[in-house]
């Protein structure tokens, strides 16, 4: 059994330190002469007291207890865990990008603004939209921004009764959540036996109160909405707008554009399709692209090229206003821009073609061993059902945990919600055939284990630093911080 990992607070020893301040050049003045006593903190914040090597050992040790794309295959469906190029990290750290203040005079940040305009244009081209804002910080922020634009559009046209947003049952949880936060009610649209939007159900639910339909295409089952042109027509004829959840656009680069499909608003997750690293949960970047009639409502400021150079436009009377301080997650945008420049048009198109081929190849290798809700060619990802294994007493969760023993991050499980015991696999284009084969071999072995020796799967994982964790205990008796010893005075 491995040792329990210490917390940084447990490494702490009074009197140890891991910092230096610069040599003082201004006079030292007593704190008490600068601040009235009532404003001065009475009780110290108990941050750890550790040496620099303690810091290094601690965080190095933590990193070894974490699985990233650099550690191994990470076929987490709908998350696009592709390789995060190293040069992008270097580019984001160039002093001229990393150490510029957002409120510097514009003439001193022309290169940053030029990059943003160039990236906006590239994303508009990729999505087939007319204008792009880089402000949203992440996908859900982009969804909310897009819905606020749609709301502003309808209100401007006197359509204040459009209070409903249609969301398919296979949609990400952020879709309905964003709709509610934007002040809408959500209506669920069913999927049909093909796994696609049920046109009859859509037609029954769309109407004069429809503000928008939010759609992921290819959807979360990895299937392209073949009726998309008809869907767009239905929604538009009812006066609604079509929202494209492009969190995962890894199947469409150079193959099909949301703008051409009829979408009015698109958001992209630059931390998925465009290789911004996920960072253990963020930061991301969720740019939003719109068609012409929604441009007036875009959040301020708009970055654009003027005769005098690159500039920020705040004079937008119909804008929904500011949605984020400054100009979005610029550092993530630098990484995505660096990626797009590296791949070029040809490379991006190959990305999607090879992502689709990889997914179909894995699906072909695995589909006989599992239940398959939709046996058709997929796009960049596909779903299996663990129903057959469940009948043997082995749940999808067990299969996922058993994969940990083989050194893999498991696929997404129990999502989308409309597939029982769902296993959602997204290989991405950056993985080699050998990697895909080895993973498929492991999956097939686990299927065999489920039939012959289910206990080994049911009790997995066996090789990780901790075994299955008690999530019920965590929720029932929440311990959300380290409970320190006695408080102490700082003065």
């Amino acid at each position, binding site marked *: 059994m491995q040792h329990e990992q210490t917390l*940084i607070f447990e490494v702490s020893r009074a009197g140890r330190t*891991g*910092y230096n*301040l610069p040599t003082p050049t201004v006079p030292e*003045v007593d704190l008490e002469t600068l601040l009235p006593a009532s404003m*001065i903190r009475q009780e110290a*914040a108990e*941050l750890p007291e550790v040496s*620099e090597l303690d*810091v*290094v050992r*601690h*965080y190095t040790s*933590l990193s070894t207890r*974490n*699985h*990233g794309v*650099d*550690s191994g295959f990470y076929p987490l469906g709908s998350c696009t865990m*592709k390789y995060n190029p190293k040069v992008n990290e270097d*580019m984001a*750290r*160039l002093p*001229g*990008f*990393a150490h510029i*203040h*957002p*409120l510097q005079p514009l003439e001193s940040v022309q*290169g940053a603004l030029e990059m943003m305009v160039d990236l906006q244009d590239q994303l508009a081209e990729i999505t087939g939209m007319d204008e792009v804002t880089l402000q949203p910080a*992440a996908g*859900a922020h982009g969804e909310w921004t897009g819905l606020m634009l749609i709301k502003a559009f309808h209100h401007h046209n006197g359509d204040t009764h459009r209070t409903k947003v249609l969301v398919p049952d296979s949609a990400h*949880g952020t879709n309905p*959540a964003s709709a509610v*936060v934007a002040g809408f009610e959500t209506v669920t649209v069913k999927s049909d036996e093909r796994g696609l939007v049920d046109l009859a159900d859509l037609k029954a639910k769309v109407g004069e109160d429809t503000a928008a339909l939010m759609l992921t295409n290819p959807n979360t089952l990895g299937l392209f909405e073949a009726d998309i042109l008809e869907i767009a027509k239905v929604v538009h004829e009812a006066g609604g707008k079509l929202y494209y959840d492009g969190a995962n656009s890894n199947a469409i680069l*150079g193959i*099909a554009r949301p703008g051409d499909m009829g979408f009015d608003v698109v958001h992209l997750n630059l931390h998925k399709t465009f290789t911004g690293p996920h960072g253990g*949960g*963020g*930061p*991301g970047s969720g740019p939003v692209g719109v068609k012409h009639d929604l441009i007036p409502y875009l959040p301020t400021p708009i970055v654009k090229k003027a005769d005098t150079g690159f500039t920020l436009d705040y004079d937008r009377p119909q804008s929904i206003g*500011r949605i*984020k*301080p400054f100009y979005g997650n*610029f550092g993530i945008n630098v990484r995505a821009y660096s990626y797009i420049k590296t*791949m070029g*048009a040809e490379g991006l198109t190959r*990305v999607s073609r090879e992502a689709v*081929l990889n997914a179909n*190849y894995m699906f072909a290798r695995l589909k006989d061993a599992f239940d398959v809700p939709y046996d058709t*060619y997929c796009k960049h990802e596909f779903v299996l059902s663990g129903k057959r294994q469940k009948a043997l007493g082995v749940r999808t969760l067990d299969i996922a945990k058993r994969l940990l023993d083989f050194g893999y*991050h498991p696929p997404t499980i129990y999502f989308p919600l409309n597939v029982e015991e769902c296993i959602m696999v997204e290989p991405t284009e*950056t993985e080699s*055939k050998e990697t895909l084969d080895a993973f498929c071999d492991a999956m097939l072995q686990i299927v065999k284990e489920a039939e012959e020796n289910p206990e080994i799967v049911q009790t997995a994982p066996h090789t990780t630093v*901790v075994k299955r*964790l008690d*999530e019920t205990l965590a*929720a029932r008796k929440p311990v*959300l*911080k380290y409970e320190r010893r006695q408080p102490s005075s700082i003065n």
Partner: protein
Amino acid sequence: MNRMEFRYLPMTEQDERDMLQTIGVESIEELLEDIPASLRETASLSAIGAPLPEVDLVRHMSKLAEKNLHTKSHPSFLGAGMYDHLSPSVMNHMLLRSEFYTAYTPYQPEISQGELQAMFEFQTMICELTGMDVANSSMYDGITALAEATYLASAHTKKKRVIVSGAVHPEAKDVIETYAGGPGLNVEFTPVADGLTDVTNLDLTDASCLVVQYPNFYGRIEDLAVLAQAAHDAGALFVVSSNPLALGILESPGALGADITVGDAQPFGIPQSFGGPSCGYFAVKQALMRKLPGRLVGQTVDEDGKRGFVLTLQAREQHIRRDKATSNICSNQALNALAASITMSALGKYGIRDMAVRNMQTAHYMKESLKTAGYTIADEGPMFNEFVVDFNVDADEVSRHLLDNGIIGGLPLGTYESARRTHMLVCATELRTKEEIDRFIEVVGGMN
């Protein structure tokens, strides 16, 4: 470009043939046939251009970067929510441990203990600094966190009136107003007197919350105890947006009555990066724990009784509750929370106080020097590392003149308030030297 020159794409021609054969199709096109042909015809990416080899890419990116003046080559006196602070070398080295930055959200705890524990430690450090009971594992930034706080307060109190101090960051005012358009909240701003929230005519009737910034936009330190009392007397929640570095010396919002404390951990070594990504934090008193937006990490045990960490109280979140979630937030700023944690660990209990004191001393030196040189300090009073100086001439011109002399000046306030056209918000952190400050004053003195 030759096929093998795409170094991120490992598929060989042989692989492609083998895989197509296994699938039972002739070409990739067959896999795309469910996409209407009309769409496939118009999807060209002609405007994107040709791929760039790594050396060419670095040349292109460097050329763009070099068009910007940065704070490592030009002394900067800009603050206003984004600060030029020291960033210990150890922070970047640890941040580049790629098991951290190439990982997704830790949904599989057995192979994500590193990230989960780091977030648990971040939550603890934020609670220590703010004096709050529970902190989440980060938000996009301090200002959207503040806007989310108005949502929480309104949902909790079931009231729609949001009262915001006129002395919060102007961009925070804008974001709060935009956010209010979602659930239909009504936002009102308080008057400001002497650079502080004016408490004399505060009407908090039916308010869900009172929102203040600490230190505020003008650098002044609000009397939180008095404001908290006013909020609580009216049945409103008291929401404080706070620079966490200042909390190394300032009394914590938790100790002074805050119900929600938010802010941005960017001062802990996170590069300014033209405004983002930074690192929002969100902390509350115990009673509001189940209403927090965003991800929370909790301690538990594994089957052998060994300590471990998991994402918890997820019934608040969008991926479980969908349209009933407390917020739509999904991605956060986990990697920057890690960066802030590493810096906070290196600074430690005494370092954070020393660094805060040094900021105050440096800004104090600058303020006194400006006074000696004959300039007026607007709304003078106790401050942290920022204050407002009145130059009596258009502050935009002062800023331009400073830039012509290789100095990135403070923030001219005329853009936000015409009455403050001659005012500049100046920030002097521990990185500014006496020589740089003296030079600033000399350059401004040489105008005309």
